């Protein structure tokens, strides 16, 4: 990676990440979060790219995100919303969202996922340096839509 790119392990709670960004002397021009989340209807190693388009959910929902974050819940959705609320995100923020498959005991990746690591790293590098290869395949995430289902249900 070129010297202007910082790679940071960020397996922290959303508040800690937001506070990290708040203290940066020179803000990042672009941020890519690499996340592994089990989602329905995906195969192990599936790669999805999302672009964060900002916008906020209701204040009640933001409060809930902050409350969860401060009490230990690690959630990428909460992170995106809290960061948006505190106005810390750069214009370009991507989520490289990998399907890890079902959660298993132990420290290691499954063989299936291990086999996909080179492709994941290549995609990550390209995304960080050049942006998405095919914009048509980039999903959109918006804070005012992230929790719609939950908010309507309650």
């Amino acid at each position, binding site marked *: 990676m070129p010297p202007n790119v910082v790679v940071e392990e960020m397996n922290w*709670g959303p*508040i*800690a990440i937001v*506070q990290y960004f708040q203290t940066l002397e020179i803000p990042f021009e672009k941020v890519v979060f690499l996340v592994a989340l089990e989602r329905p209807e995906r195969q192990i190693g599936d790669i999805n790219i999302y672009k964060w388009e900002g916008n906020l959910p209701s*204040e009640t929902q*933001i*409060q*809930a995100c*902050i*409350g969860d974050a*401060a*009490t*230990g*819940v*690690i959630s990428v959705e909460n992170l995106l919303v809290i960061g948006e*609320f505190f106005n810390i995100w750069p214009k370009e923020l991507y989520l490289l969202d990998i399907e890890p498959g*079902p*959660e*298993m*005991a*132990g420290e290691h990746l499954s063989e299936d996922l291990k086999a996909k690591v080179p492709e994941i790293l290549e995609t990550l590098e390209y995304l960080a340096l050049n942006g998405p290869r095919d914009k048509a395949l980039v999903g959109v995430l918006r804070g005012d839509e992230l929790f719609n289902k939950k908010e309507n249900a309650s």
Partner: protein
Amino acid sequence: MCFKNLPIAFDEEGNAYLKEGINDPYEHKVVDLGLEQDKLKSLMEKNGFIRSVDYDPVTRVAGALAFHSIVDLEQKKVISTNSMATLFRGYEVILKGRDPRDAAYISSRACGVCGGVHATCSALAIEMALDIKPPPLGIVMRNILLAIEYLYDHPLHLFLLAGPDYSEELVKETNPELIEKAAHTKAKNKDVHGYETILDIMKDLNPLKGKLYLEALSMTRVAREAYVLIGGKYPHPQSVVPGGLSVTVDITVLNELYSRLVKFFDYSQKTTGIWDDVFDFFLESNPEYAKCGIRPATMMDTGVWDRPDAYDATYKNCDTWGEARWSTPGVLVDGEVVTTKLTQLNAGMEEFVEHSYYEKWDGHEFKTDPLGTPLSPNHPWNKETIPKPGKQSWRDRYSWDTSPTWDRMPMEAGAYSRMYITAKAKVAPDSKFLENTGHSMKIHVPRHTLPEKTLEWHIPEHWNAFERNRARAYCIPYSAMVAMDNWLLAMELLKQGKTKISTKFEIPKTGTHIGFGAWGAGRGFLTHHLVVEKGVIKNYQIITPSTLNAAPRTPWGVPGPYEEAVLNTPVLEKFDKPENYKGIDILRAIRSFDPCMPCTTHIMAKDSDHMITREVTTCACGIE
């Protein structure tokens, strides 16, 4: 004699024995909750103003808590309550059969805030079971680490979770009459916090935008920075091990720590000043607020912060090293201290599952503790966790939480219990910054940008939601000053070249070894009971503060602390029609305990290593 209900007596030399001539000494009554439910059903059918008010989930608390209440909106009182933990905690099951050294790392995951206290409690249990005494620096640094963890937790509770209940935005909706009054009420502690009126404070308590809300968030960062200097990571420290800590401490680490700790000097003065002003305002505006969340001051605490010259990890000496702690272990019944001895605290503990989704276990392996004090078959060392998911019913079982008791009484827990028992008992050794008077705790806060000041927390006349939160505010200077006391000790140890921070140990491959860790969480009482057999964990039982506070009814029908506190809460909220009723008084009562359900309830790992499932029953609709 401390026990009034358990069949334990003491001879003239203070040795405990089981009272003779009782057929089944640990027998207990089981009442039919169905009768009360029948009455309620009939009342609700006849009266439209008697309504079910359900909170599922209760918001602004950590984790999954649901609360069911039946409220008479005409008489403005609560007539029935049920507290429900809605997730299963599987740590007891997960830890069985593992190497005891795994316990600190695994049990730490029980909470996303207070992982450090779970890890420490686990380490203490192993130290007791396997006779491992940490070196002085290990003890002192552990004290600092956990004092700092509380400094994360207290502001979080006060300003992010409970605080918004007293904010301008919320009070305007539920009690608009107070807003006008707040605008004209001068704040008494302007010299420390800078606010002219109570309304000015309430505005800055507003969530998301209020300066106090945002400041608390930034103070949690200061605490986390200090914490990771010792723990390596927050919230799950990497360095807490049985026998001390696995970290190198030098003068640089202590200096880095100090630069964070001093920020809590002024913050202590500011926070106590703010909450004194806000709570005095509410209580003076309407004395009925004193009934919000009221219950007798019946609570217990394990005590925390060991003296390096007293702590030897043994059960034999635990009464001595327990009473030497900066905060005194003990039990308070209706405001009176009934014991400060860890052996008695331990012997009085039982856990019941009659109204919980667990099966009753058989067996009574440990009839006494290692000193011969009788133990109930319901004691944690004898308890087995056997989950039994089932239909939720107010008549029968309705929670994943158990019903823990001490001497057959439900007990409350909180950081405030730590301060209450310490102040009242007056057995904690003298300290540079703390003074216990029997009716108050004086906390000498050194100068930072504000001049030095002695803060004094007074044991209140009534134990209610406001006093819980007020006491929690005073726990900030209390924790900060214990950290300072220990920081000075650590400096002294380094000067003397006593840099050893942990003690090596081996896990014995034979025999049975038992121990219990007693170290309060940010929210109060926490115990880990451990049985090691042939080198692996045979039994592991965790009782957290919210296990105590969120408890369902005892088998004999006594409500748990949340349930009792809400039952006693008057409806002071203003509303024009029942549909607009928000239940702020009930929520204030519940939130004053700072519920933390992740450590009350957890995910169940099934027999297979690869499967994690959640057993969730949250909807209270239609439950009988």
